[in-house]
């Protein structure tokens, strides 16, 4: 076996000198949350790296809704789930149809619509939130799940359309032409040629929209207020309202809330990295 040279050791040491701080920086807030979740109430504040008596008791309390702040946990979890799923489906339907129309059918004015959508994409969502809140009030949708679903679809669609349009521009025109020769109608091309070929991008966009909706805090907290109608992040924010808020339960709920998106992200990472980040910034 060859002994590593001094130079190799030095390089490795320098890499570690970067790698270790990066690891600590990344993990400390997440580990801190995890530590709270598995610590009994009295241990949680001790500042130890590992609790003396790790327990799943906090999870039991959350799952049995045995605390004032948690009495609607399942309802709120369900709200988050339904809203995320609805946003995913609606965004996919609306954005796929629009991208097909702009890119493949070359609809008149398509370019203008694309630019308007891009413009919306660049307006910070927190700025749009103020007029959106009032508008939802005018539409009579406040405190209704539809307000959040529609708001999130509005925010997710522009990027979705843009990514899908980029992807469909790459499909050869000959495919459509061949299908037309075979007598396919526009809808048949859409269903049997376009959608199957676009599958990887569709998976990426669906995941993007679902995660965006699941993670949204600002719009959820503006548009929904009734305890049984709010989503999980709003419920987490509400914990802070009390002085004696049970941190260990807040962190446990937060941990449960963070697990699905993390799992989805890692499961679809291949699509996310290829389909989204590359498209996010075209140099």
């Amino acid at each position: 076996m060859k002994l590593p040279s001094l130079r190799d050791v030095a390089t490795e040491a320098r890499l570690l000198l970067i790698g270790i701080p990066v690891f600590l920086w990344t993990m400390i807030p997440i580990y801190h949350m995890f530590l709270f979740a598995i610590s009994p109430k009295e241990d949680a504040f001790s500042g130890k790296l590992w609790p003396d008596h790790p327990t799943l008791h906090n999870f039991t309390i959350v799952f049995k809704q045995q605390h004032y702040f948690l009495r609607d946990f399942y309802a709120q979890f369900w709200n988050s789930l339904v809203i995320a799923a609805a946003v995913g489906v609606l965004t996919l339907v609306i954005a796929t149809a629009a991208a097909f129309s702009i890119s493949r059918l070359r609809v008149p004015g398509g370019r203008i619509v694309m630019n308007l959508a891009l413009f919306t994409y660049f307006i910070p969502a927190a700025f749009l939130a103020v007029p959106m809140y009032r508008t939802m009030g005018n539409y009579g949708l406040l405190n209704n799940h539809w307000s959040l679903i529609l708001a999130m679809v509005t925010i997710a669609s522009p990027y979705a359309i843009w990514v899908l349009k980029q992807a469909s521009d790459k499909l050869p025109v000959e495919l459509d032409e061949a299908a037309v020769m075979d007598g396919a109608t526009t809808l048949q091309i859409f269903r049997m040629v376009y959608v199957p070929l676009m599958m990887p991008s569709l998976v990426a966009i669906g995941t993007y929209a679902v995660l965006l909706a699941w993670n949204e805090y600002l719009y959820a907290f503006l548009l929904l207020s009734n305890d049984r109608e709010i989503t999980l992040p709003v419920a987490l924010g509400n914990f802070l309202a009390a002085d004696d808020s049970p941190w260990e339960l807040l962190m446990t709920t937060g941990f449960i809330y963070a697990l699905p998106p993390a799992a989805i992200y890692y499961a679809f990472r291949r699509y996310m990295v290829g389909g989204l980040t590359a498209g996010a910034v075209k140099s």
Partner: protein
Amino acid sequence: MAITLSGDQALPGPPLSSRLTPAQVWGIILLAPYLLVFLAFVVYPVCYGLWLARAPSNYVALYNDPIFARAAVNTLIFLVIGINIKMVIALFLSGFFAVQRPWIKWLSVIFILPWAVPSIPTILSVRFMFNPEWGVINHLIFSFTGDDGPNWLNDPTVALTMAIGVHIWKSLPFWTLILITGRLAIPHDLFEAAEVDGASWWQKFRYITWPSMQTLYITCTLLSMIWTLGDFNSVYLLTGGGPADLTHVLATLGIRYLRLDQLSLAMASIVCAMPFVLPLVYFMMKRLSR
């Protein structure tokens, strides 16, 4: 793109319906859902908001509100200092993660976590860490020095710095990932040739890496600035705008006015940000719609 443009011009001729092919009719039908969403939830709210903010008295009120001035300065600090620090670190780390080592590959998977998990629980976790009485940071300070640690979030400068830190923690992985893609696109033989010529790492960066990445880097910086203008969570969940409303940024200030039922002030504060936002947006659109 020239093909689509030709359809936009309103040529005099037979009525619209007879000029459209069936494919174009379908095109309009398929585009309609998005147009409806756009009209109902972008055009109408924006116009309505601008109409609410039309009175000059709103702007006088904003001008006289010290919280607004402070928020504008904070936003500027957040963007100019925070984003540039973040992007320089991202550029540096993109070089680190481009090194081929099994453990670096694993680290890059872990490194994405802040981006993959929702920001609410992790920001609250940081907030608890820095709690003056029960937070783990002050607990450690007490056990090592015997002194009480500072009341971190009660100092506006420290609080704003920490909000920037939280923002960097959350979005650094995303930008690093994008810069890694840019870095990997540089042909490898350039570096090999430089290696043969005995170039130092700085020369390699200065003459190979940076020239190939600067457009991407600048686009990323501007895009990150636009998006960070809308970063509500990092400030609101960590400091709530406090202490004494000194750490607000424009994103949280608009919501603060909204909560105080001063919708026209909220809109006016957003209108004030537009002279800075719109040029950035215009630039980005030019870059992306090529």
